[in-house]
């Protein structure tokens, strides 16, 4: 190990929590298992492994370890999480109970369809509901996440042109404001990306779009409202232009929380879109998944849907319910995962739509948009708004202060405040920061999405924190540069992580020094929004470190 690691254990603060391996004692186990009730067979000695380096801990060790770890997370259940493009709305507890019903949780996916009609009926209904919300002709629930839904959509567009004997259509147009998944998906499908710029209003530049249109265009991917949070005012003209040159229109459904009951992508002319059930329909983000990304299509792409999908295989009668089955669409692009989709997420989304109904979903969108515009209106005048108009469910402002006071001489600290500093300082006020440095076309972007489940009081508290930070930016730049000060760990060294690449603590691979210090008492991150934060004692602060090269935040 390098010298730097030695300093970690010599004089550095102790770890927040030991690794589960460090809690191990030889011979201890948390598993309470039966002895075999059948005669024991002879094990094939020559095929067996010698050792298995898993932890040796008791059940209570496990419970306490993971409970302590949980306290070092921030979560929606603890507070406001205005992470733009991620739709961090409340995850109803009912949904968790429903997905865990034994009649759902203990059904094997390969059972005969006659034995899982309840699960298939639920999926069939959800397919219909998602078609109704989008104004599309059909839905496949297969994609495991939004990125996989996108991939399915682009593969379908590709397959459609190939089936039409039009293999020269190999270009997908993507606006420069797009999520990074859009170009990445296009490349994965073997197609080329052409980027079109946005104009000063945040809309796609129509003239530039017309310039690139032609007979190589397979289609265009666009997010509605776009990633700047505004409805494209030229949406109909864009769709007309792409259809006019023989391409298909893909809608990235990441922002459907601004669309439900407001406009249906199918009515607008889109040919294909994906949903993110973990955004719009409240299925939990789970610390990074599982997601669920159903894909919806118009008539043209119905035969190409990924499968299997759920169909009615026998209509039934007055006495007999319909019989559901799993079928593969005629020209399907194929399977995207084993089995049929992230079923547990589908149950949660079903419960969410069932409890809301059509009117309730429209309420959801209206209040998501109300909250976003309210915060936008209150921050306007303090934080620059590159797009100054009514927004959808999110908006982008710029977190940049003191650029003109930038220190020119060596030895003087810069007073310049960046979006990252504001994001980190928000943590000290008890909030999760907004998405920062995305969309890429706005310098110092802070993308703020409150969602409809936050009250006026939550929105106000967040606004007050943002205004207080703007004030601090002018008065005490160091405070922001050193933030966060109240989180379990301070700013982390991302460069070191990538350079040294310690990815596991398996004893015979990484020679990680043992940790002999028990967990320390660090306050959990559940700090309520503090009205009056103490001014930190500057002398106790370490020298400012080089800022990590933090990338933009994508959606998931």
């Amino acid at each position, binding site marked *: 190990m390098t010298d730097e690691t030695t300093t970690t254990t010599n004089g550095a603060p102790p770890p927040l929590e030991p690794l589960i391996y460090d809690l191990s004692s030889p011979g201890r186990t948390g598993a309470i298992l039966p002895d075999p009730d059948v005669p024991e067979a002879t094990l094939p000695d020559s095929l067996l492994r010698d050792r298995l380096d898993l932890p040796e801990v008791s059940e209570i060790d496990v419970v306490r370890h993971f409970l302590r770890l949980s306290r070092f997370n921030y979560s929606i259940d603890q507070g406001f999480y205005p992470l733009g493009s991620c739709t961090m709305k409340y995850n109803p507890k009912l949904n968790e109970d429903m997905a865990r019903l034994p009649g759902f949780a203990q*059904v094997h996916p390969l059972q005969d369809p006659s034995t899982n009609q309840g699960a298939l009926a639920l999926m069939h209904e959800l397919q219909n509901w998602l078609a109704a919300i989008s104004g599309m002709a059909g839905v496949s629930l297969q994609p495991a996440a939004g990125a996989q839904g996108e991939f399915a959509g682009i593969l379908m567009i590709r397959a459609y042109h190939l089936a039409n004997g039009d293999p020269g259509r190999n270009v997908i147009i993507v606006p420069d404001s797009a999520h990074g998944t859009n170009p990445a998906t296009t490349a994965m499908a073997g197609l080329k990306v052409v980027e079109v710029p946005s104009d000063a209003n945040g809309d796609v530049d129509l003239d530039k779009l017309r310039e690139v249109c032609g007979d190589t265009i397979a289609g265009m991917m666009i997010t509605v409202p776009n990633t700047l949070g505004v409805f494209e005012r030229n949406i109909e003209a864009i769709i007309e232009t792409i259809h006019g040159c023989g391409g298909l229109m893909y809608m990235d459904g990441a922002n459907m929380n601004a669309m439900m009951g407001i406009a249906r992508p199918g009515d607008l002319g889109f040919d294909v879109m994906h949903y993110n059930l973990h955004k719009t329909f409240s299925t939990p983000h789970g610390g990074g998944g599982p997601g669920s990304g159903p894909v919806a299509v118009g008539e043209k792409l119905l035969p190409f849907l990924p499968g299997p999908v759920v169909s009615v295989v026998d209509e039934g009668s007055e006495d007999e319910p319909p019989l559901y089955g799993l079928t593969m669409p005629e020209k399907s692009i194929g399977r995207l995962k084993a089995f049929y989709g992230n079923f547990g997420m589908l149950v949660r989304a079903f419960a969410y739509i069932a409890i809301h109904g059509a009117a309730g979903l429209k309420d959801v969108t209206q209040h998501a948009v109300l909250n976003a515009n309210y915060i936008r209106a209150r921050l306007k005048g303090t934080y620059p708004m590159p797009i100054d108009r009514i927004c959808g469910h999110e908006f982008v402002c710029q977190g940049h202060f003191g650029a003109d006071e930038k220190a020119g001489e060596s030895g003087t600290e810069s007073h310049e405040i960046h979006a990252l500093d504001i994001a980190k300082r928000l943590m000290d006020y008890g909030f999760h920061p907004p998405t920062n440095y995305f969309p890429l076309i706005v310098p110092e972007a802070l993308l703020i999405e409150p969602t409809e489940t936050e009250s006026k009081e939550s929105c106000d508290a967040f606004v007050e924190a943002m205004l207080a930070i703007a004030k601090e930016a002018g008065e005490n730049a160091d405070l922001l540069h050193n933030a966060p000060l109240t989180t379990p760990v301070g700013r982390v060294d991302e460069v070191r992580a990538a350079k040294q690449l310690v990815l596991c603590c398996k004893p015979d691979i990484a020679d990680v020094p043992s940790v002999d210090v028990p967990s320390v008492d660090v306050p959990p991150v559940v700090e309520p929004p503090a009205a009056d934060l103490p001014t930190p004692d500057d002398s106790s602060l370490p020298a400012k470190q080089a800022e990590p090269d933090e990338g933009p935040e994508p959606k998931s």
Partner: protein
Amino acid sequence: MTYIPHTDADREAMLKVIGVDSLAELFDAVPAEHRFPALGLPEGMSEMEVAWELGGLANSNVAAHHFAIFLGAGAYNHFIPSVVNHVLLRGEFYTAYTPYQPELSQGTLQAIYEYQSMMCALTGMEAANASHYDGATSLAEAVTVARVHYRGKRTKVILSPSVNPEYRAVARTYHQGSDMKFVGDKGNATIPDLIDMLDEDTALLVVSYPNFFGQIDELGGLAQAVHEAGALLCMVVDPIALGLFKTPGELGADIVVGEGQPLGIPLSFGGPYLGFFATNQTLVRKIAGRIVGETIDKNGRRAFVMTLRPREQDIRREKATSNICTNQGLMALAACVYMSVMGKTGLRKVAELCYHKAHYAAEQINKLDGFSVDTSKPFFKEFVVTCPKPVAELNDVLLDHWGIIGGYDLSQHYPDRANQMLLAVTEMNTKDEIDTLAEALSQHDTPHHHDHAH
């Protein structure tokens, strides 16, 4: 209004600050003729009504808690200690986002780091990522790694026909737009046959361990042959089997993928599951998906962070290895808790229970007239039985008269395997259940109405 907290007074005050008169006015930018469509959904329901409706749908399914189940083929009814679900239900874990802000995510980050460590220990590999969607997409991503590794200079992927058919289908779906070619899995190719297919265009050779038929193939010499041809070896593995059998690392694998569902994740009609992915140091910078690494914070305190981020789609965009953003974070946490509580001895014991019970079942069934078990190779928890009649017919009898969910009908994917049933036996199957299965099969011609349920 469901989960929306706004009062009339709130709405009024907020609209005033915005400077509009109504909620509807917020949507003026939407084309008027398409604005505010009727959605054609049912009326909203109360919480109790939704619970009743979903309870009814759930109860109409035949589920493993009321029936003996001998169905596997990629999803397994293993025991899940209660502690797993209790940890998963901590709102701090399941209502958190992807840990992009390490200062607010050390819980998730350390748990993923521990998960990666345990997957390395289990597979005998040097590095593991934070997971893919499922075992099938992990295999598809392994093909992508091979493609990136050889920069398009090698385009052939040799697939063993005894890799899960759905995994092979998904790998093909993923690569329909790429230049990768899949060969080897159309017939009955054995391991030596696959070795014969190696050439200078081969990027990756994929085998399953145990294979889809539950058997442990003779893999000695395979890795050497693959490496001599300049290609990479990928093994699709059952994580429970690795509680007992030699690691893919010892057998020379370059990439190890598999389905983590057996590690504490319920059957849940096929998802969400957990695709694990492990490899060695030379390939780690080419793999897709999230990876957590150890570092320090500005005070020198140990901290964890997502690392090797520049591989990912939000930074690399069209040059990214994959478009993946989500992993199966919560499912990786489930596996992490499961492996912690099982530990060194528990996982071994689960694997041994599977082994002993599967062998007992095979012995009982092999004695029956008209049934024969394939014992040509060592097997773990699944085995193939050749039956005297179509599997679908036998399964109907097992379910209708004996309360047993029977095995997987291999003829669905392998046309020359008519009347062959793949049976899975885990630690959850009691001797009673196994004896009842054998009795039921022995009486398949004269079903009597035996109402068995546990």
